[in-house]
């Protein structure tokens, strides 16, 4: 337990010195602001630039509800560029420690492997969750200002669903970072797999039930309709099972010293 705190503290000092605590939230603030602003001003922008020849603007575009715009912030910004930024910012989370020998070095100390993984997960999840939340709030403020107001309770429920999906993103990237040796491969596998999960949402109800990316869909549905799908609870539990599985694999991989290839 004491080691866990020491390791979390170390991660934060590192993030502070790498300025990750600053740039990651800023990226998400921009992503959060982009969707409502673009949606609101796109007709005006097109009109000004395109000379209006041959372009018809769907009047429903400008008449979107606030909840819909906030939902598309999640679906079009966070689940695409945001997800890539998260995966890339965390691809080295364990890989750099492996590559420079610090992981082996830390483990020559009386440090339990779960403490090490816990330190990584807690610190990186908190910064990811903080960034997502602050970006989401930015979007919420713009939406309320430019579109119709979104009820606070809907906004919070949507956020909670989305943060669980974020937890899966973090734990999955941590797992690939523990297993693979090259940062490029780690980023590629994480991004392809996670975006793949997100893309197949809605194709098949059974797959949706198993898919952790459905959490993002539940968040969007809550924002758009105000209702939560009845499958959400089962999906939530299964998502936690997936998260535990990724943590278990990470732990197995490091405990069995599969990381040293010498």
């Amino acid at each position, binding site marked *: 337990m004491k080691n866990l705190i020491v390791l979390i503290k170390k991660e934060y000092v590192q993030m502070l010195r*790498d300025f990750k605590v600053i740039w990651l939230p800023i990226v998400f603030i921009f992503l959060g602001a982009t969707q409502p602003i673009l949606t609101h001003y796109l007709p005006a922008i097109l009109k000004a630039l395109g000379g209006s020849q041959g372009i018809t603007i769907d009047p429903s575009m400008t008449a979107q509800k606030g909840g819909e715009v906030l939902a598309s912030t999640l679906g079009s910004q966070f689940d695409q560029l945001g997800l890539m930024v998260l995966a890339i910012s965390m691809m080295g989370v364990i890989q750099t420690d492996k590559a420079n020998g610090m992981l082996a070095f830390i483990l*020559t100390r009386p440090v339990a492997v779960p403490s090490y993984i816990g330190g990584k997960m807690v610190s990186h999840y908190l910064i990811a969750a903080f960034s997502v939340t602050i970006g989401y709030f930015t979007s919420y403020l713009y939406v309320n200002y430019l579109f119709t107001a979104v009820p606070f309770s809907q906004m919070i429920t949507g956020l909670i669903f989305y943060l669980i999906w974020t937890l899966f993103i973090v734990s999955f990237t941590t797992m690939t970072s523990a297993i693979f040796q090259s940062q490029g491969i780690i980023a590629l596998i994480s991004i392809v797999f996670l975006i793949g999960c997100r893309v197949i949402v809605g194709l098949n109800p059974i797959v949706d039930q198993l898919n952790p990316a459905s959490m993002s869909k539940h968040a969007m549905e809550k924002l758009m309709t105000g209702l939560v799908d009845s499958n959400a609870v089962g999906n939530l539990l299964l998502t936690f099972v997936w998260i535990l599985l990724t943590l278990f694999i990470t732990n197995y991989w490091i405990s069995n010293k599969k990381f040293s290839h010498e």
Partner: protein
Amino acid sequence: MKLEIINVTKSFKEKIVVNNFSLELKSGECVGLIGPNGAGKSTLIKMISDIIDPNAGEVLLNGKKISKMKREIGYLPQYPNFFYWMTARETLMFMGQLSGVKKEVLTNSITEILTKVGLKAEENSKVGTFSGGMKQRLGIAQALLHKPSLIVMDEPVSALDPIGRREVLSLIEEIKKDTTILLSTHILSDAEEICERFVIMKDGTKIEDTKITDLLNRNSENKLIVEITAKDRKWVDTIKKLPYVEDIEVVGLKVKVKVESIEENKALLLQNALEHKVDIVKFEINNDNLEEIFLKLVVQK
């Protein structure tokens, strides 16, 4: 403190790197693990410090598995790497706390240990700016910090320049008084300087485990070398007649005297020389030096 390495074997894919290796270390010993490159020294050291698991056999410290006794081990890797963004003091604080030492205790002991390794002036500099020698000294500091009963060092001086090497060697000489040390090296003169006991490894097996004096005695040929001045040449004829002298070989001013037993006869020969007022330039036991013995052992066997 007692370290037991029992029938340890490790192979990577098909290649056996450490083969059925056994070794026992007692408290207060300083053991040098020597062998050519690729002999399996680093692999063995990594198994002792629980970085890799052996395929067979076990490593015990005080009768318990090494993975349960990490608090008692200080490990210095071959190329110590630290977080470049930490300062020397932060690094030691981090490593110390991971070993379960309290923060308040560390505050004092870090100052003490940084002074000992000569990094006191650099305590607030980032590790990323350190030279190889400084990193090595910081590595030694972190290995000592939690006062382990066993310190394991993988090639502590091989990568350093002569000055850095001198510094680190004298540092090890100093810490030797308080702890048990196991170090690997392929530079024999270093091992000769700091260790009393040697384990020579080749192709993953132990080919020799001995005290340095035994090793040297075993390989000497009962010859004494007396270097004299030109005016004393006739003394050579005198000693030819001595009963314990078996053979004499003169090379320039060096007289190689083969005797029955070095222990018994060396004093007699010296006495004889003094009685004849011989001007002695040098009087020594003819030994192969460690390097020659090492080459003999490693190349022949």
